[in-house]
């Protein structure tokens, strides 16, 4: 996530940093980072995810050409099963899910005070 080039006023910068510090200490966010660190240190789990990602990308290309074989589908499902059986990967996935479910509650507190949806205002431009 690239930081904006816009300079925040000092008060807002400080308030943002304080909020970030508190969020990092909150259990769902802290747990997410612990799970992410564990995944980054687990070469086998990382390799499995890379193989799954490559297989999915390959299958998408072949699907567009109408040339997928049953063996390729079976192979992909095998990788998916391995991912779902890997405790480090599943712990990371669950931790990420919980962290992402936590943040909207924080946005709600901010937005209720402002009278406008902060995340919607700050999000990417809609199409």
């Amino acid at each position, binding site marked *: 996530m690239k930081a*904006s080039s*816009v300079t925040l006023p000092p008060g807002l910068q400080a308030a943002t940093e304080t909020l970030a510090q508190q969020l990092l200490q909150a259990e769902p966010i802290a747990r997410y980072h612990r799970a992410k660190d564990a995944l980054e240190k687990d070469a086998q789990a990382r390799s499995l995810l890379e193989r799954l990602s490559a297989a999915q990308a390959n299958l998408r290309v072949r699907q567009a050409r109408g040339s997928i074989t049953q063996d390729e589908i079976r192979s992909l499902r095998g990788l998916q099963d391995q991912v779902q059986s890997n405790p480090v990967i599943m712990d990371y996935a669950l931790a990420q899910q919980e962290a992402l479910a936590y*943040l*909207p*509650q924080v946005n709600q507190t901010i937005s209720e005070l*402002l009278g406008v949806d902060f995340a919607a205002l*700050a*999000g990417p431009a809609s199409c």
Partner: protein
Amino acid sequence: MTELVQEEVKLAPDAAVLQAARNFAETLADTPQFKAYEAAAERRSRDAAAQQAMAAYRSKQSSLQAMLMLNAVSGRDRDELEHLRQELLSNPSVAAHLQAQEDLTVLCRAAADLLSERIGLSFTAACGPGCC
């Protein structure tokens, strides 16, 4: 306490996070950009011509919604919709509100980017459309 309620309690922001969130919101509300946005929104809501132009545009847009989604709007209707849009945008209080909103968006985006960088997660992506 049921397991589900226990889980919800565990995932709810604690007092320190809520206080930091409130402080963040209050500080943002105190910025010139936010105050200008509120003032512009107030002016626009009191501007009868702006309200009329907005109602006309929304009414036309609503009547064409199905055709717009199918990309099957007639040239005449498209021209009329564009004309109503330009009328709306040419209203001074509407234009001022849009500019104030853009200025506030730039500030909010910068704050959200900093927050996301620090916590290692995209705050705005987590709070997708309609999360509040």
